[in-house]
């Protein structure tokens, strides 16, 4: 132990950069394997865009777990509900979406996304009050209750919208690619990356630069201490839960547009991917979740390009590899 004088600045926490370098290294290592530069750029952009979308969906889940030790197996429901709610605006206004004007398209997309976020957020409120609140602190029952919630939500979507896949074409101005030299970059991927970055920066700023963010981070590390200091962490938690659900709804809209279709089973399907991401990232860590999402997307894209057969199990292999290296995920923030 070193002696510190009162005037010395506090020692800076050590920065752990190895996980940050991981996606960069992975992308660089892939250059010789992929071969041509143009396909490498396309693949990398595709992974970044996909990673950002997964991050948007997963961020809420990891915070909810970190803050309150609540494992929400029904998180996928918010994704599907968000996508379905967005179709309420996008399908009737399909005419203005097909007009070749970026601003007109965005004027329809933005309210659809906002409505989806609002609906998912409200659903989050209901789920927290009805399903999560009664089984606080009991992992087993939480898992059972939220799994039941996912099933009910999925079946309600089937009952209300029918079992068929709803096609959701991209707006005219977001279709096609930007061509730079011999590199083609899909326009929608650029938008997805932009939205993902904005969300990431907003979350990081909120967590690191505001009082609420400070409380959330403190709550993740030691909930009882925050309660002892007189803060109502339950209310904070409800806020985080609703924000996380709303973000999942936003992610659902973006994912639906990316795949150009909406289906009730999309929530359940994506849940698996999201779980892998938050396990890789370390439960409760936003930066870990971000890196995890990028890694999962990269493995999916590069893997799908190089060895299509492997793509089925590549996520599991990635998870195994990461957990061998760091058994509690890239950044272990919680003591649990």
């Amino acid at each position, binding site marked *: 132990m070193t002696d510190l004088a009162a005037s010395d600045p506090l020692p800076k926490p050590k920065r752990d950069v190895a996980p940050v370098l991981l996606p960069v290294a992975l992308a660089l290592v892939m250059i010789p394997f992929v071969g041509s530069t143009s396909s490498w750029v396309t693949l990398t952009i595709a992974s970044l865009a996909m990673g950002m979308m997964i991050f948007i969906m997963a961020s809420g889940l990891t915070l909810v777990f970190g803050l309150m030790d609540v494992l929400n197996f029904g998180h996928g429901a918010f994704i599907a509900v968000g996508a379905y709610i967005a179709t309420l605006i996008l399908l009737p206004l399909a005419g203005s979406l097909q007009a070749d004007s970026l601003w007109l398209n965005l004027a329809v997309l933005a309210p659809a996304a906002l409505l989806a976020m609002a609906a998912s957020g409200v659903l989050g409120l209901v789920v927290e009050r009805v399903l999560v609140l009664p089984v606080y602190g009991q*992992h087993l029952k939480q898992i059972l209750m939220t799994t*039941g919630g996912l099933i009910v939500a999925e079946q309600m979507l089937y*009952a209300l919208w029918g*079992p068929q896949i709803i096609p959701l074409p991209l707006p005219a101005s977001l279709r096609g690619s930007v061509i730079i030299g011999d590199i083609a970059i899909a326009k929608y991927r650029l938008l997805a990356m932009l939205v993902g970055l904005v969300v990431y920066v907003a979350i990081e700023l909120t967590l690191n630069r505001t009082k609420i963010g400070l409380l959330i981070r403190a709550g993740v590390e030691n909930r009882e201490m925050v309660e002892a200091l007189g803060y109502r962490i339950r209310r904070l938690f409800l806020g985080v839960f609703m924000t996380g659900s709303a973000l999942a709804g936003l992610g659902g809209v973006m994912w639906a547009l990316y795949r150009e279709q909406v289906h009730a089973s999309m929530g359940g399907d994506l849940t*698996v991917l999201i779980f892998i991401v938050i396990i890789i990232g370390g439960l409760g860590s936003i930066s870990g979740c971000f890196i995890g999402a990028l890694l999962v997307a990269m493995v999916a894209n590069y893997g799908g390009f190089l060895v299509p057969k492997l793509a*089925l199990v590549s996520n599991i292999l990635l998870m195994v590899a990461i957990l061998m290296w760091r058994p509690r995920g890239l950044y272990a923030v919680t003591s649990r």
Partner: protein
Amino acid sequence: MMILSGDPPRSRVLSILLVVIILALAATPFLFPGAKAMNVAAQICIFAALVASYDLLLGYTGSVSFAHTMFYGIGSYAIAIALYSMGPVWAAVATGIAVGLPLAALLALAIGLFSLRVAAIFFAMVTLAVASAFQVLASQLSWLTGGEDGRSFQLPELLRPGTVLISKSLIGFELNGRVLTYYLVLIAAATMILCLLRVVNSPFGRVLQAIRENRFRAEALGFRTVFHLTYANCIAALVAAGAGMLNALWLRYAGPDTSLSFTIMLDILLMVVIGGMGTIYGAIIGASIFILAQNYLQALMGAASKAAADAGLPLLPGLLHPDRWLLWLGLLFIASVYFFPTGVVGRLRGAGSAKH
């Protein structure tokens, strides 16, 4: 008492209920001749064993696994693929068992060592991920598994419905291969359930319950919790694979919908919760109630949906449509976790002991 491993039902109503179920199952081929009744009875037997093995995990160790259908599927596919490729001979059945059981155990060992070592909370998520990967794998490797169509196969001569062992004129009842298969399923399932009862009442089972109640304390007492949990996981996987084999033998078919789908996982969860977690007997009750409801209530739902549609009610026909069976299941599931966490068996035992 010996055969129940010193763990009787401990409730008069429950004992009567169990005896009635078991007698009904044993007498089904005589009492209710007909394909449907025997199908339902065989399904109850298979699921009772499968659910009991899941109860070992959920009820006795308190860890939620979503990979149980994977082991069930491994068992089903092992038998199906062996009989499909080797032809309807007993050697093929033996091969299926000899390949399927070790495969299930090894996979369970790998998952257990990998995910139970880190943190118990990972287990649920890791099993979900692995199971979904396996499901995709099974539908993709169509040269082996038949893809979405699955594999249909012929049973060995002795077990075929056409094989008449004792003709109807002799005892007033035809003992054919189908009935023989049914009793094979019944006896195998009963043996597996009794074995599980033995496991949970052994010192090993007590340690599992200790881990469920307080893992930290169990560890402090010197038990290697990871070893115990992984071991329990392997036993559960073995029995699940066994149940899967019975399922394949009974259906003469193995496919993604009958042995791997997430719906079956949900059914298992519901049966455990309805019957009562941590009781083993709950599996028999839960499976009986659930399978009977599934087979006979769905028709009722269809009728109700039709009636609602005829009455011109909005939304209700869609909600009551037989395809929306899962919706009500999900609601029932949430309600039973919330209101009856101890299930039917827990309720009956509680009512019995309250009178004393």
